């Protein structure tokens, strides 16, 4: 236990742990000490001098070591002649801090006056106005009058772009250094810095593209003035015009808590429009940060049917009509009633021939109802993913009480086959910080990733040998040694691996995070099994901060695993064999035309697609059902840390016709009245599925009425959710640091969490015991072909997926489709860096890995890499290149 120190601040006694800074001690008891440069997540620097206080310390008699007493017996306190900075001074026993005195107050007034001499005071056109610490503190400590001559102000050209995402107004910058320190101290992306000195000091970016960091948007939250603004929000709205709603990021399994700011706009026909996405504090998930994908990648959900781009949203059900023997007919608008009756009839007919294929961006409630439907009919519920092993995470995953933020000395984290920065940036940050706190970070991968810099052990395995590599660690710890392929024997003998294995085994707590870097479904299943075996053998299961954590490609894949969804290694066969297909939030045909088989999913199935857009798959469907995006409704997601978290309606369903009814008050905006027309508009996925099911079986235990009811039904049925209620997910407790109240100067504009911190799921212990569960792991290994290359899929945070492309402002960062080639291979193929090449994908059944048959061909740009082994080609996922597992390819230069 840390020692507590008691001191007095403005007459109030407070006891805080030794080492606490005076400024934080004051915050804990609600006393305001204004700050600009200090931020509770960063080391103090004492730059702005705003936090001035008077500090007195007990006088100690040197000879006795005892405090000197006043006549009245109270300890004699000596005050230093100068004001001191509360942000740099640690508390001391018996210290007396005075922040409300005339002297302290005038010190702060002096600082504010200094800051304003250089400030443009353009609040009326400043995006920060209304939530600006400088503005707020000026109202409190500023003089009504300026003693500074206006024309002696320093001027800069305004609005310098630090890259296309973040803009800088140098006149507004108060040189607090928060942005620079955030980038170097917190996220280890020191791509911005101070240039010059004195009043000429300005923020510059060193990277190309400018401000090249996945975390850049956070600097706009902590910038205490309007110097840093996002390209997305600047000039977009004034903060006081905005409403807010709590949400959860839908882009990756971290499940960052968000607040979305919305307002109604005439330009959008009176619709509610999302103006920006802000982090919402959850110290166990994302603290007060989000990555730029979460911040800037919301447009897909907010797009509408008026959208003129290819991201035009579906507004009503479509049913295929007029099909003949020689022509496919066409999709025509239909009523929900009509569409649902067709669907329910055909599903009932299909019976156990129904295959529901669901995408991992669906909510728990959607997935649960889908599962209820397939259970009712005896069909199959399949998760559309390239990464397996989820059932192991429900059994050996992390459990309630787990929090990477609490891992440190004595703990270990093994990250395998994963590029955390690209797959789940906030986890990258949390794991890096755990390593900084003393956790032993072990990285197993076939190639270098940014996380390597934070690791205690970095181990490389040959491409395709991830499972063997984990087993090599297991071998290092056990008597019975599995025989491993030759290719990993070098690694197996590596003393670093031995040391890493021992550290892992001896750790108090240990996590394994596995991803899908360079692997597909089959490989990830084996890998997960090997990881589970390692955890089991080292006793790192069944306790908080221990277990297996999947770095899934989608935000709610974990939810799907918890609800019993399966994977399908031979998906195109399964699709072809099904009597009816219910494809929800997935676009297999768009991702890879091979899924269509010879004649569109085998040709005989009845295909229903439920989605936001008319996807490639939807174009082939018999019925298309329009779904609401997650921000148009409520529900819950389960994060990779097995935390069920609620999201709330942010905007009304996009295509709901806006009622023209006028509000009776002359001052109020028109009222939004949901009329009957809404029934022809998109509906929540869970509701659509429930309506279909109920039409098949009116007795079915399934509900369309509300996400809350679905959730509670789920809690009754699914053991993992049994400890939870929808209401409890909305509970919050006090978090440190305190952010988002009226003291924005302290933590920045990240929102306080009032919408719920979520709850972690209990482990699934009902399944078979661990012996059979963990029985065998087959050691397969992808051999390199004698001819041609093997393409390995990698993740890029910014991809060309359908949930990101609608965010225009990210297009420059996303870039065009590309592949990465080894330099020697490239030389042989006469390919130079930047050349456009043809890549031909082999048959999707690489039974014989050496066989390269002609498949689809894509035209991509080639990038060269010195480090890649020969014959290895890296291919980014979701870039329109149909590679989701190691796949033989042929590459040739485009003549």
């Amino acid at each position, binding site marked *: 236990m840390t020692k507590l120190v008691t001191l007095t601040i403005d007459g109030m006694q407070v006891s805080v742990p030794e080492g606490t800074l005076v400024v934080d001690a004051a915050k804990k008891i609600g006393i305001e000490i204004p700050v600009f440069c200090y931020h509770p997540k960063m080391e103090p620097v004492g730059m702005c001098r705003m936090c001035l206080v008077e500090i007195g310390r007990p006088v100690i008699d040197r000879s006795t070591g005892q405090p000197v007493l006043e006549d009245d017996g109270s300890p004699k306190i000596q005050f230093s002649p100068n004001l001191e900075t509360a942000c740099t001074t640690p508390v001391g026993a018996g210290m007396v801090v005075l922040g409300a005195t005339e002297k302290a107050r005038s010190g702060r007034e002096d600082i504010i006056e200094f800051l304003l001499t250089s400030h443009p005071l353009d609040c009326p056109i400043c995006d920060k106005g209304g939530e600006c610490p400088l503005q707020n503190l000026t109202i409190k400590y500023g003089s009504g009058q300026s003693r*500074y001559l206006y024309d002696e102000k320093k001027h800069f050209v305004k609005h310098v772009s630090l890259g296309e995402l973040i803009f800088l107004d140098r006149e507004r910058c108060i040189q607090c250094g928060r942005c620079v320190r955030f980038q170097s101290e917190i996220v280890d992306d020191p791509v911005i810095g101070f240039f010059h000195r004195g009043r000429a000091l300005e923020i510059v970016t060193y990277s190309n593209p400018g401000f090249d960091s996945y975390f850049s948007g956070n600097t706009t939250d902590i910038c205490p003035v309007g110097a840093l603004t996002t390209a997305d929000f600047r000039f977009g709205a004034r903060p006081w015009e905005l409403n807010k709603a709590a949400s959860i990021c839908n882009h990756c399994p971290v499940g960052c808590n968000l607040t979305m700011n919305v307002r109604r706009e005439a330009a959008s026909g009176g619709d509610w429009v999302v103006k920006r996405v802000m982090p919402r504090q959850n110290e166990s998930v994302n603290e007060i940060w989000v990555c730029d994908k979460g911040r800037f990648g919301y447009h897909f959900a907010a797009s509408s049917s008026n959208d003129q781009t290819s991201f035009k949203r579906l507004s009503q059900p479509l049913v295929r009509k007029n099909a003949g023997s020689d022509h496919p007919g066409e999709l025509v608008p239909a009523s929900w009633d009509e569409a649902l009756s067709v669907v329910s009839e055909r599903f009932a007919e299909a019976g156990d021939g129904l295959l529901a294929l669901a995408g991992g961006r669906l909510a728990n409630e959607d997935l649960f109802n889908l599962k209820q439907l397939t259970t009712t009919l005896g069909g199959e519920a399949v998760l559309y993913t390239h990464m397996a092993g989820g059932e192991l995470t429900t059994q050996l995953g992390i459990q309630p009480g787990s929090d990477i933020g609490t891992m440190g000395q004595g703990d270990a984290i093994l990250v395998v086959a994963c590029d955390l920065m690209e797959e789940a940036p906030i986890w990258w940050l949390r794991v890096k910080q755990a390593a900084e706190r003393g956790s032993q970070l072990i990285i197993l991968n076939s190639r270098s990733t940014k996380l390597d810099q934070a690791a205690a052990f970095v181990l490389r395995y040959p491409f395709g040998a991830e499972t063997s590599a984990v087993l090599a660690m297991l071998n290092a710890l056990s008597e019975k040694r599995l025989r491993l392929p030759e290719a990993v024997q070098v690694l197996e003998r590596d003393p670093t691996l031995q040391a890493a294995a021992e550290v892992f085994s001896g750790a108090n707590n240990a996590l394994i995070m596995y991803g899908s870097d360079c692997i597909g479904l089959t490989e990830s299943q084996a890998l997960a099994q090997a990881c589970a075996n390692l955890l089991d053998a080292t006793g790192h299961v069944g306790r908080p901060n221990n277990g297996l954590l999947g770095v899934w490609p989608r935000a709610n894949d974990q939810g799907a695993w918890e609800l019993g969804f399966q994977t399908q290694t031979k998906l195109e066969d399964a699709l072809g064999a099904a009597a009816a297909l219910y494809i929800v939030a997935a676009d297999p045909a768009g991702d890879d035309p091979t899924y269509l088989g010879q004649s569109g999913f085998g040709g005989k199935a009845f295909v229903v697609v439920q989605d936001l857009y008319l996807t490639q798959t939807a174009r082939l469907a018999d019925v298309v059902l329009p779904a609401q995006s997650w921000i148009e409704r409520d529900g819950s997601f389960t994060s990779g840390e097995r935390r069920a978290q609620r999201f709330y309606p942010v905007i009304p369903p996009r295509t709901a016709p806006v009622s023209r009814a006028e509000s009776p008050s002359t001052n109020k905006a028109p009222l939004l009245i949901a009329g009957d027309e809404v029934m022809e508009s998109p509906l929540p996925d869970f509701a659509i599925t429930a309506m279909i099911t109920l039409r098949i079986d009116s007795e079915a235990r399934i509900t369309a009425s509300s996400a809350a009811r679905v959730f509670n039904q789920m809690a009754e049925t699914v053991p993992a959710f049994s400890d939870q209620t929808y209401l409890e997910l909305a509970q919050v407790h006090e978090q440190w640091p305190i952010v988002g109240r009226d003291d924005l100067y302290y933590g920045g504009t990240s929102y306080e969490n009032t919408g719920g911190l979520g709850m972690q799921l209990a482990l699934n212990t009902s399944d078979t015991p661990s012996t059979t569960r963990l029985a065998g792991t087959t050691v397969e290994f992808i051999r390199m072909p004698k001819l041609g290359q093997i393409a390995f899929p990698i993740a890029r945070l910014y991809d060309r997926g359908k949930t990101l492309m609608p965010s225009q402002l990210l297009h420059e960062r996303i870039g065009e489709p590309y592949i990465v080639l080894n330099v020697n291979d490239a030389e042989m193929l006469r390919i130079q860096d930047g050349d456009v090449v043809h890549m031909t994908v082999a048959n999707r059944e690489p039974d014989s890995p050496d066989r390269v048959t002609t498949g689809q061909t894509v035209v991509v740009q080639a990038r060269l890499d010195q480090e890649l082994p020969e014959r290895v080609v890296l291919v980014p996922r979701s870039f329109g290149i149909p590679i989701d597992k190691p796949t033989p390819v042929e590459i040739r230069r485009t003549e």
Partner: protein
Amino acid sequence: MSKYPAGENNSYILLRQRAIPDLDNLDIYRQHGGFTVLEKAITSMKPDEVIEVVKGSGLRGRGGAGFPTGLKWSFIDKDNWPHYVVANADESEPGTFKDREIMEGNPYQFLEGIAICAYAIQSSAAYIYLRGEFWQISANLDRHIEALGVAGLLGDNLFGSDYSLHIYTHLGAGAYICGEETALLESMGGKLGQPRLRPPFPPSFGLFGKPTVVNNVETLTNVPPIVERGAEWYRTMGTEKSSGPKIFSLSGRVSRPGNYELPLGTTFRELIYEHGGGIPNGRSIKAIMAAGASSALIVANDEALDTPMDYESVPALGAQLGSASVIVIDDSISIPWLINKTTHFFKHESCGKCTPCREGTYWMMHLTDRIANANATQEDVALLHAVASQIRGKCLCALGEFSIEPVLSGIERFKADFDTAVSETNNN
């Protein structure tokens, strides 16, 4: 006879090249006893004994703050290794040009001082941080360091011991703030030259985060004679609390500006009139800046002129001795003009890290511009005083605090000059 005479007139302890030609030649330096002190220290003294001698000598830092040198060395954290020595050769204070003369004329004594200091704190790497404009000196020092290596006086296993030392030079980019020791350390670490928050101080957290002694060039040059002749001998020079010789850089309106090596405690009158030859052109002395641009202006009356220049007496005049760069101001100079110069300097050199200095120097510059150019009113003078006062005591480092010294003392002690300046506004 020792190579170091007692500090009488024209008998040099620091600027010995003035008496011995070609002292920047290693052979000549050795002929005059060079590096025997280092040898003595390494072969016959324990590191702590060296520190004790320096402590006993009463040597105080010559870089400006006058901090006891031996005490600083004894603060070095012995639980954290390695240790470093950094010689501060940034010499950027306007009116200070003593370190330059030492490094040009008597470089080996300086290097020997570094080596003894390094031995005392058991550091095997020492750095010399020179202001960017000293590139020629830096190149020369590199040659001298090389010569020492060749002569076996620097490098591994010195004098057959297991003690090794290497010395490196490092050029700054010419920023005044990089003379401040923590900004200097940042700059050496490849970062922006801005002061660090203290504590921790360099002896516990210095170069590359390791315990470091930072000393001024002149301070280190005092070390070989102290270790050779002992603390007692050293204390025979100077005053009780300010012992030893000091190089006074004399400039401004004097007949013979230049460096004068004199015992601490020499009076202003002796320096300016005996050594400096008094005020030229029949002018009379008006003010003295004892610490370069960072000085409060001393009204040059008889009392002031008879004040001994040491670390106790100058503060009694409401000023500082600093690095003892004595700038003489005669009666032809208008104080508003003078503080306009100093304020421009500080505005230009403010690193910008903290608000009061960054904004305050900028504001003061505008005010002094207008006052000096007869474009201001009494209110502006009062405002200038207020602005300077509100900078006071709030800065992160001493630069900001220095910047207000000439301003406040100028307005308070030379009010008439400001009245004149303002009255000219009305005539405009």
